[in-house]
């Protein structure tokens, strides 16, 4: 099962990134790609580790790992002072966009018979 990991880091933290990736590889994750989504001012002030942050660097780590890695990694990243926000997401399926066939009109009888919510 492939996962994505997203973290918000405090600016100027090459060491923190290195730490994170090493920790991931230790638990047996295969890191495929590491993307830097840029450093920008956060959409809202985030308080983490007794500090109010206004700017952060966004990093996206493409990795393959068993799902058992998620909880310990979230713990580990939570204790890291340089990480403001952390998240693990499943890989989005790219095939969805090509199958859209447009809005199929629903006949009024179907609307009546189908239950809403």
């Amino acid at each position, binding site marked *: 099962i492939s996962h994505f990991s*997203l973290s*918000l880091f405090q600016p100027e933290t090459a060491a923190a990134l290195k730490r994170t990736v090493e920790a991931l590889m230790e638990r047996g994750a295969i890191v495929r790609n590491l993307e830097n*989504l840029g450093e920008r001012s*956060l*959409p*809202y002030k*985030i308080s983490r580790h007794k500090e109010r942050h206004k700017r*952060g660097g*966004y990093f*996206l780590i493409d990795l393959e790992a068993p799902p058992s890695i998620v909880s310990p990694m979230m713990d580990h990243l939570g204790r890291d002072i340089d990480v*403001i*926000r952390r*998240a693990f*997401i499943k890989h*989005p399926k*790219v095939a*969805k*966009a*090509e199958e*859209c*066939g*447009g*809005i*199929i*009109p629903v006949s009024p009888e179907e609307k009546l018979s189908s239950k809403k919510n």
Partner: protein
Amino acid sequence: MAARAVAARRPWQRLVPAALWARPRRLQHEGQPERSDQPIHMENPYEDPPKRCVLCGINVDYKNVQLLSQFVSPYTGSIYGRHITGLCNKKQKEITKAIKRAHVFGFMPIMFKNPQFLTDPKLCNIKHPE
């Protein structure tokens, strides 16, 4: 004489008794010639192609904050409903999930719309801004 000769050559054109033409009601429609003048059933060739919503065929991503901000109110930051955005069920659900994800991950502001994207083209037909 010629007429009688002609009649002899075409024996099937003899006077057919009327009884042969009168069929019982049950067999009335059987054995009809294949070429009837009933309409042929076919798909409507002039039918419009299915209506597509604005996002049909576009991949919705939580990182694409500009796209997501187009479906959010500039004053309150609340997500517009289906009757305002005009999206199909699938895409509306995808957009909602992506916006909520972007909120949590710190990509998109929650209480307002990112001022950078305020001048984007309007996709939603909202008449009375909140």
